[in-house]
């Protein structure tokens, strides 16, 4: 395959991944690395480097839209970014010493977990927490606009959320994914933050977390311009188009199909990882 054909095909694949990721709300980054390693036979370190770059592009693009809505809590985000960026550094350093077969296997497990999470109904949790002393000291409690007026919320269990965020950052740095699912889990289940606030704040954090490991990847020589170029341009155009053509009726089916694809890719990654094929 010539570089020209390779570029066009990788661009197309990334475009579809970005489009489906935006339409289903599951994020396209999670299928990029399996796509590149399983179908294009790209070394997983190059694939993770290219995926990290595309994660920054989509997250920054989406965050620009979210900051105006007034749901994201910049204090929660910034405090937890201390954990995610340090975790991301650890993940990026681990990527250099962990065997590629182990990275593939971990990736497969994360894919299966993401598919499981995407089939679970969205938590309809309406937390009403008493004020927590630590969260109050950290000025994390906030409010957001609802049709019924301003709703105030209190944040709980900051240490648990902080530790989970460190783990989310490590996964992100090792696998080149946004780990949005783990971030939302930490904020929703551990810290009891309202769902709308945790999803938008998570999106705001993903780009910063990915940037913390992308620097290490760049310095290590894991980011190849010839590969990252079609991946980044493809995912970006795909997700931009996806956010503009949100069709409500079809997303249910799309989510089902997309999570099935994720399951198949996850099993393949584990299989190849265990057999040492990657």
């Amino acid at each position, binding site marked *: 395959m010539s*570089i020209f054909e390779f570029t066009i095909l990788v661009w197309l694949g990334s475009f579809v991944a970005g489009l489906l990721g935006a339409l289903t709300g599951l994020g396209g980054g999670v299928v990029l690395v399996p796509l590149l390693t399983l179908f294009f036979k790209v*070394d997983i370190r190059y694939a993770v480097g290219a995926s990290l770059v595309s994660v920054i592009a989509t997250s920054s693009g989406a965050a620009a839209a979210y900051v105006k809505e007034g749901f994201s809590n910049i204090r929660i985000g910034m405090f937890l970014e201390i954990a995610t960026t340090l975790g991301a550094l650890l993940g990026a350093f681990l990527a250099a010493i962990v065997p590629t077969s182990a990275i593939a296997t971990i990736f497969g497990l994360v894919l299966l977990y993401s598919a499981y999470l995407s089939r679970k109904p969205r938590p309809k949790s309406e937390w009403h927490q008493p004020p927590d002393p630590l969260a109050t000291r950290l*000025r994390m409690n906030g409010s957001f606009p609802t049709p019924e007026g301003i709703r105030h919320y209190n944040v709980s269990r900051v240490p648990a959320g902080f530790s989970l965020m460190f783990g989310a950052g490590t996964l992100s740095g090792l696998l080149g994914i946004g780990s949005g699912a783990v971030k939302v889990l930490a904020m929703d289940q551990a810290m009891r933050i309202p769902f709308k606030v945790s999803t938008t704040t998570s999106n705001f954090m993903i780009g910063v977390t990915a940037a913390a490991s*992308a620097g290490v990847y760049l310095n290590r020589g894991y980011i190849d*311009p010839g590969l990252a170029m079609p991946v980044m341009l493809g995912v970006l155009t795909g997700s931009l188009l996806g956010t503009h053509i949100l069709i409500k009726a079809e997303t249910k089916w799309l989510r089902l199909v997309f999570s099935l694809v994720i399951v198949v890719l996850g099993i393949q990654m584990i299989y190849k990882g265990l057999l040492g094929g990657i």
Partner: protein
Amino acid sequence: MALLANWTDQKVEDIVAVLLRSGVLLSAAVVFCGAVIYLARHGHTPADYHIFRGEPTDLRSISGIIRDAVGLQGRGIIQLGLLLLIATPVARVAFAVFGFAAERDRMYVIFTLIVLTVLLYSLVGSS
């Protein structure tokens, strides 16, 4: 800080939105320009990403990337675009330092500076 004293949260967030969007669009434009040069020159070479070699040293450091980009090398220009993209969230965090300083929130100025230090270490100190 007197200059920043009358900044409202809304104004800060508007600027952040513009900053993020223009960072992404600018880097995508630079990557695209590099792609045109790269494909015009190397489009017919066989592609090989199966064997991991790591990038040459000039595509690993900021100074090397700028040198290659100024020399109008396709791969150097693409890498410069990717560097701009990685710098976008860093600029956003740097901007948040000023936002918290304007609100005289010393605790969050410190938190944000910690995040900024980690990001800058990753970008320039980790080689």
